């Protein structure tokens, strides 16, 4: 028996918005410790890793480990049926082929039950090694979304360079070039608006805008986003989800062609 109750159902709504552009379907792995999801997009360029801890739920019970293969478009349709203030309870039997989403209004006068069929999915699980990144940058998530959106007008890829002075995003294409520099903020009123850089050595990597734009769909989940980079390894873009967990995106860099 699996049961998870979340007073703020809007969190799951936002999570779904944050992953459904990259993934068509994914397996939610439920265990005693919480709900996890790890999946690559079809082209194997990016990876989504979602972690929702059991203690972040208002009620959580998972007797046996359960893998739920879910079509994300279908789940998104169901989540759209819920009001933002509704309380969500997810339920499934052991070895079930159905999962139930129950939404209750705050005053408990309306109860909605949605049952969704599960799928059997092939899974490709990636072992991600613990890495000490050369640069770890924190910046307001809206700022990041804005930068990525603006630069995608110039070219398909964006170069992210980090030095101790600050972080630079640049793109170039047919219409010209664009550079956006952010310096570390010295003092701010709110932590949320801060730009902080922890750097061991400078890094410069090239990434496809398309994927960064998809990552930025997680912006509503968190006021801050954290970028971690090291030379020649995938970028990590992390959004904290309240005090319940996080969503991490990994993106393989673009590389210079050795044959040309």
């Amino acid at each position, binding site marked *: 028996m699996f049961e998870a109750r979340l007073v703020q159902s809007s969190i799951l709504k936002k999570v779904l918005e944050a992953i459904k552009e990259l993934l068509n379907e994914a397996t939610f792995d439920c265990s005693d410790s919480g709900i996890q999801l790890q999946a690559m997009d*079809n082209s*194997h360029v990016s990876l989504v890793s979602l972690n929702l801890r059991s203690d972040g739920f208002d009620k959580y019970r998972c007797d046996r480990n359960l*893998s739920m293969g879910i079509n994300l478009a279908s789940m998104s349709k169901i989540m759209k049926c819920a009001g933002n203030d509704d309380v969500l309870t997810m339920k499934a039997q052991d070895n079930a082929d159905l999962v139930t989403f129950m939404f209750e209004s705050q005053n408990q006068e309306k109860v909605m039950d949605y049952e969704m069929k599960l799928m059997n999915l092939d899974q490709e699980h*990636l*072992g991600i*090694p613990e890495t000490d990144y050369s640069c770890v940058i924190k910046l307001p998530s809206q700022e990041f979304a804005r930068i990525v959106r603006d630069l995608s007008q110039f070219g398909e*890829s964006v170069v992210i360079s980090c030095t101790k002075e600050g972080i630079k995003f640049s793109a170039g294409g047919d219409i010209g070039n664009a550079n956006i520099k952010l310096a570390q903020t010295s003092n701010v009123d709110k932590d949320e608006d801060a730009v902080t850089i922890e750097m061991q050595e400078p890094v410069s990597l090239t990434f496809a805008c398309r994927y960064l734009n998809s990552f930025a769909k997680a912006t509503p989940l968190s006021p801050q986003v954290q970028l971690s980079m090291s030379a020649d390894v995938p970028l990590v873009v992390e959004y904290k989800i309240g005090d319940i967990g996080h969503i991490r995106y*990994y993106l393989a860099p*673009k*590389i210079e062609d050795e044959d040309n």
Partner: protein
Amino acid sequence: MGIHGLSKLIADEAPSAVVNNEIKNYFGRKVAIDASMSLYQFLIAVRSEGAQLTDADGEPTSHLMGTFYRTIRLVENGIKPVYVFDGKPPELKSGELAKRTEKREEAQKELAKATEAGDQEMIDKFNRRLVKVTKKHSDECKELLRLMGIPYVEAPCEAEAQCAALVKSGKVYAAATEDMDALTFGSNVLLRHMTFSEARKMPIQEFHLDRVLSGLELNLDEFIDLCILLGCDYCETIRGIGPKRAIDLIRKHHSIEAVLKNIDNEKYSTPEDWNYAGARRLFHEPEVANAEELELKWTEPDEEGLVKFLCGDKNFAEDRVRNGAKKLLKARGTTTQGRLDSFFKISTTPNAAKRKSEDSKTPNNKKSKTGNKSFRGKPK
């Protein structure tokens, strides 16, 4: 013509070995293309109103048209193709080749009949059956590829075998051919429908040899014997043994020798002087050029050279050729997107077993059945 009924057998017995993928997901991959197969495709398929495209002297140019535009399509999707041309056919293939010549002669007769009757549909049909890839076609294509900056390899013998050798050596990611025997030659990854027209919206079928073997519960030697039983280009088969029986027999007895000892000779007549051992040897040690020594280099296209070669006598439109050359050049300039699986290790694929039992009954295998049918026959 590859291995008879193998793709259907794989779809039935090892569905997880086949993945359908979009062409754009192959960016950055180097792929060895069986040129004789694709030339044949082009000569058949690239037509206008049923007739082949021709130059001023009436010589066909369909193969050049196909090679030019479809290669550009591959390159634009970030794929690095290398074409592999057939050398001389192996001696064991003479039987198969004789059969093909016979069929061609038959088609010639039918064509004469149809022409007499004025049946346009039949004329088209038999015209297509008469298509043959000649040395001239290959030579023109090689010249075209050279101008496009695309490398090619001349195999000493069978192109599929050479493609497989390139895959095995790690020089390329996959062999792109419709012939399933690239798997029998040991190519770990086989792509079908790679050079199909974009308009057909056919997904690329990706076969993985290791998953085929684990799905069929065979090792490579047993798999080769299975392919010989199914029917390859190099020897006869045992009459009365179809795919289902072949896989059961190989699973039980593990080799053709043991199968022969255990089957009822009255019921199944083995062909006289059946040279399965020769075919097996050919699959094990095909005559190929050492892939390690082959240097594959993708270079800049020669725009002026292309215009000179394709326009003029060959009747290609100059602006389209120039446009194509620019596309090739542009695709070279961009950086290649990396893949996560080259950084992180893929660990497990659970659920595959669970799916297998279900999928073997679903429409999935139906699709590959039709795919198979449409690609029978590769006369040489």
